[in-house]
């Protein structure tokens, strides 16, 4: 496919109307052509945002129960480990052209550790995950913390600490927070949460 052929189909592609195998062919072209990729991103962004103009309608009675049943029970190992979620989520992924669907059912390599406060009390868990892109997931289930900024740092194998992101603590006691990380930090040996004044509030040891 060349650029002229792509541009003949880009509207249908952006609108979700292009059928296979033409869709895959067009996407493959966009992957290797910066200008066509930019055009698709621009038109697709507009087409997607316009969906917000759709009317809102109450679904039939019992919809919530049917939808929840279809979603199934959450993974047992995660259930109940934390009580609620809060804080900004910034999963920074690599520049991918293809949609989220391309990550279908990818198995995730997970390294997990318990987060302990300074008094060795467990306050949550942290996971280093390789899919869909490398990220760290911090889950806190703890008493109401003091307000301020919390910084998450990961320790390289050489012992140096790397700040990977931070969040503001508001009036909600517990939460989940995630941020994209460099692939090499999937081999981190430890994690720590640091307060504004540099105090280490909690740590997690991935090697234990």
């Amino acid at each position, binding site marked *: 496919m060349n650029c002229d052929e792509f541009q003949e189909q880009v*509207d249908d592609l952006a*609108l*979700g*109307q292009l*059928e296979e195998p033409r869709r895959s062919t067009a996407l493959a072209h966009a992957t290797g052509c910066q200008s066509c990729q930019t055009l698709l991103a*621009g*038109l697709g*962004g*507009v*087409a*997607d*945002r*316009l*969906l*917000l*103009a*759709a*009317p*809102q*309608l*109450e*679904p*039939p009675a019992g*919809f*919530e129960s*049917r*939808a*929840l049943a*279809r*979603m*199934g029970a*959450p*993974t047992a190992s*995660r*259930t109940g480990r*934390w*009580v*609620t*979620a*809060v804080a*900004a*989520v*910034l*999963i920074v*992924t690599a520049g*991918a052209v293809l949609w*989220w*669907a391309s*990550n*279908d*059912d990818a198995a*995730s390599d997970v390294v997990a550790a318990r987060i302990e406060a300074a008094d060795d009390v467990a306050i949550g868990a942290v996971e280093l*995950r390789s*899919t*869909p892109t490398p990220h760290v*997931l911090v*889950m806190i289930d703890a008493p109401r913390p003091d307000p301020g900024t919390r910084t998450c740092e990961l320790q390289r194998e050489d012992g140096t600490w790397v700040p990977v992101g931070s969040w503001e603590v508001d009036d*909600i006691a517990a*939460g*989940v927070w995630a941020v994209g990380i460099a692939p090499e930090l999937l081999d981190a040996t430890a994690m720590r949460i640091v307060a504004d004044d540099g105090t280490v509030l909690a740590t997690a040891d991935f090697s234990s």
Partner: protein
Amino acid sequence: MRHPARLDRLPDDALLAALAVGERDAAAVFVRRFQRRVFGLAVTIVGDVGLADDIAQMTFERAWRHAGSYDPRRAGVTTWLLTITRNLAIDAMRVRRAAPFDPATLGALLPVSGGVDPQQAAVDADQLGRLGEELDALPLDQRRAVLLATVAGRTALEVATIEGVPLGTAKTRIRTGLRRLRAAVEVAT
């Protein structure tokens, strides 16, 4: 111990993160927060309540399965979710044309007769922001074509049939409208 009331206060992306880590209460709050939008879009595209119900369920199932791959740089959570709905609805429509399109479905969004005050066709600017303003500024025929192709999930051929114009004209209206919106949004940002 769970606190669905607190979950209810979360911003959309944090709620999606809670869904991603398997919190069942998060699933309930998530469905409750978005079900009217998801079902509204589904029924707008497929024109069949039963099929729309099924598509809306599939949307939430897929969102739950793929919550971990959501990329906030690409779109807001609502837009991401509605894109899933649209794709599922369009797939379903390829298999089964549930009902002929009823222009009244979109109500004031798409005035069906000529001479209508364009303001009556204005979409909720609060939802679309700058894009909504630019949409309102489009010529009425382009606006109708763009909304039919996006919100109603219609193909260019269907837009041509609904509007009573040649296929080429429908394609041009969609193409020109989308590009004007894209240019306006890019200038604004």
